[in-house]
């Protein structure tokens, strides 16, 4: 059973090791990449089914009992994130087969991509705060190299800003972890969930919580800590942009959700109010930034920020329904955002440019691509029956239920402006005729030639439609995660054993005197 939980880390790690050893045979690296991604998808779906059937799964590394060793925990949220990682990983690797040139492949593109997946999955599955820091570094180092691989001037510029702000965030995270250890004497997250409420100096706990908020906030790209994202995400090749856009900021969002549901719920009035303000401002600045851009990848990069706002809104409202919305939103967003970048890459292949001014005539030349763009674009804007409609609907409803009218208004405005940005790309790249001075004339869809690019797009568009039309199972998974997030008891007791959560229950007085 423990192998199933560890396999989302082991498979990409083994794949990366093998591919690194055979670095001088690019073709072999591609094969290893595809095989590992397929295996990863199979095992992570199996893990999700297992978690859904049997509840939270725990593995204690090297059989050191918690809280002394490192625990790996898969609850619903972790398992969902691991499955999404596998889906995006597979799509990206297939897309890369055509999109990544020989030079980059030669310098270890596929092993690095697998290392990135290794780090991301580790961050999702670990139950130890310091271990989380280590996973962050694994995924960051892989992402640094992926972003700069190829060494074009925009890439170097973007990487510079991306690396330095992320290193600052990592250092801040390290200090916050150190202070947490100083207060409680433990780094196991389940143990922290029991011990943090018992710390007498509650002011210090809130201060450390704010440090975590800033450190994870930089990685998630929330207001006002997002400036690195639009400066860097459009610079690497499309395949790299897509996997970064889909996954990396969502690791930050995941850790924010984990930290502010499991660990820091002592002063919800302060921390979650702060999050709510950040959420509203993130949505607005992101979508307004996108409105000012006329380059496809830069529009999409700005939209990542505005969409992060919705997820943080769900966390900040901190009601069962809002958390369901947040988890559902992450599920939908990862698929759709990566897909839009993939479509952007095909637009570049067909028209020769990412600039909206220089593109055009795609609707006439390639109705297939037009449909494939409309699905994720309208899903992002939240049109029913596509996947974006449900989480937005749930979040609005959650906001109205707790009478946070302002945040709902902001979210609605953001939705409308998102539609504006998507129709801007539609009108410019697809609807209008081929402009004067276009880089090259558009000649059809070139499906046979570009099939490695089209297949991932179709795969992800299919998932978008399935989530939209057949939302019930996804909603159930999101509900199960939200229930686990709001009641830490199951999480704590699966890691530490029966009765471990009782000190907190005694403190809150909800279940006084119940013997384990």
């Amino acid at each position, binding site marked *: 059973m423990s192998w199933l939980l560890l396999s989302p880390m082991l498979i990409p790690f083994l794949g990366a090791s093998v591919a690194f050893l055979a670095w001088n045979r690019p073709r072999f690296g591609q094969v290893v990449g595809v095989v590992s991604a397929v295996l990863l998808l199979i095992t992570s779906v199996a893990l999700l089914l297992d978690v859904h059937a049997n509840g939270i799964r725990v593995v204690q590394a090297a059989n050191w009992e918690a809280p002394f060793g490192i625990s790996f925990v898969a609850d619903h949220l972790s398992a969902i994130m691991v499955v999404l990682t596998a889906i995006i990983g597979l799509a990206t690797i297939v897309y890369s087969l055509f999109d990544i*040139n020989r*030079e980059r*492949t030669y310098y270890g593109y596929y092993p690095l991509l697998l290392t990135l997946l290794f780090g991301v999955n580790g961050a999702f599955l670990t139950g130890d705060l310091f271990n989380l820091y280590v996973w962050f570094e694994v995924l960051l180092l892989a992402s640094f190299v992926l972003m700069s691989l190829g060494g*074009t001037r*925009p890439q170097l510029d973007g990487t510079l800003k991306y690396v330095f702000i992320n290193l600052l965030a990592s250092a801040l995270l390290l200090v916050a972890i150190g202070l947490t*250890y100083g207060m409680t004497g433990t780094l196991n997250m389940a143990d922290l969930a029991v011990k943090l409420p018992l710390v007498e100096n509650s002011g210090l706990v809130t201060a450390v919580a704010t440090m975590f908020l800033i450190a994870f906030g930089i990685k998630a790209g929330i207001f006002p800590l997002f400036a690195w994202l639009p400066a860097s995400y459009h610079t690497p090749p499309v395949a790299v942009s897509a996997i970064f856009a889909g996954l990396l900021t969502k690791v930050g969002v995941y850790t924010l959700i984990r930290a502010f549901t499991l660990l820091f719920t002592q002063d919800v009035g302060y921390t979650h109010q702060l999050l709510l303000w950040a959420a509203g401002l993130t949505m607005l600045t992101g979508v307004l930034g996108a409105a000012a851009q006329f380059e496809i990848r830069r529009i999409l990069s700005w939209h990542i920020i505005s969409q992060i706002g919705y997820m943080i809104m769900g966390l900040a409202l901190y009601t069962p329904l809002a958390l369901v919305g947040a988890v559902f939103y992450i599920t939908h967003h990862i698929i759709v955002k990566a897909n839009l970048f993939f479509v952007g890459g095909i637009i570049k292949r067909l028209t020769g440019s990412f600039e909206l001014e220089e593109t055009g005539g795609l609707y006439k030349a390639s109705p297939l691509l037009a449909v494939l763009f409309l699905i994720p674009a309208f899903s992002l804007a939240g049109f029913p029956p596509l996947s974006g409609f449900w989480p937005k609907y749930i979040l609005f409803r959650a906001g109205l239920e707790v009478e946070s009218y302002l945040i709902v208004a902001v979210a609605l405005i953001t939705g409308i402006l998102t539609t504006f940005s998507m129709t801007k790309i539609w009108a410019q790249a697809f609807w209008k005729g081929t402009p004067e001075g276009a880089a090259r004339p558009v000649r059809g869809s070139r499906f046979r030639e570009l099939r490695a690019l089209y297949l991932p797009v179709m795969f992800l568009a299919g998932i978008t439609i399935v989530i939209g039309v057949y939302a019930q199972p996804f909603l159930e998974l999101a509900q199960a995660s939200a229930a686990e997030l709001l009641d830490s008891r199951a999480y704590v007791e699966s890691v530490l054993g029966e009765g471990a959560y009782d000190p907190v229950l005694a403190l809150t007085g909800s279940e006084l005197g119940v013997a384990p």
Partner: protein
Amino acid sequence: MEWILAIVSGFIFACTLYLMLSRNLLRFVFGLSLLTNAGNLVIFTAGRVTRAAPPLIEEGATTAAATTANPLPQALILTAIVIGFGLLVFSIVLAYRNFEEMNTMDPDSIRVAEPLDETDKDAGDVRIEGAEVRT
């Protein structure tokens, strides 16, 4: 002891911030190397500074005889030092490559990825076109 270490790490943080606010990339990198050290010092202090025996257990015994020092913060710091060193090396190389390409150490004047006007953008396009080799 702890208060001295607390003041020292606070001072290093202040130096770090000062260096990082500089408009010279090299100073920023120096600040970065100081920053991880300040963080390590915080972990060390947070683990409580005690005068105690090393955490070694005599042969044949199952528990340590005397009160021992806390080994965990040292293990954490060791990990953090290794990671910090790797990141530092990467950022030095990155800063150097940027200097080679852009001929400046002032990050504010590097606008290739986010051009303010057309000339900035064209400067960045030169190498992309050359590097585009497909399999």
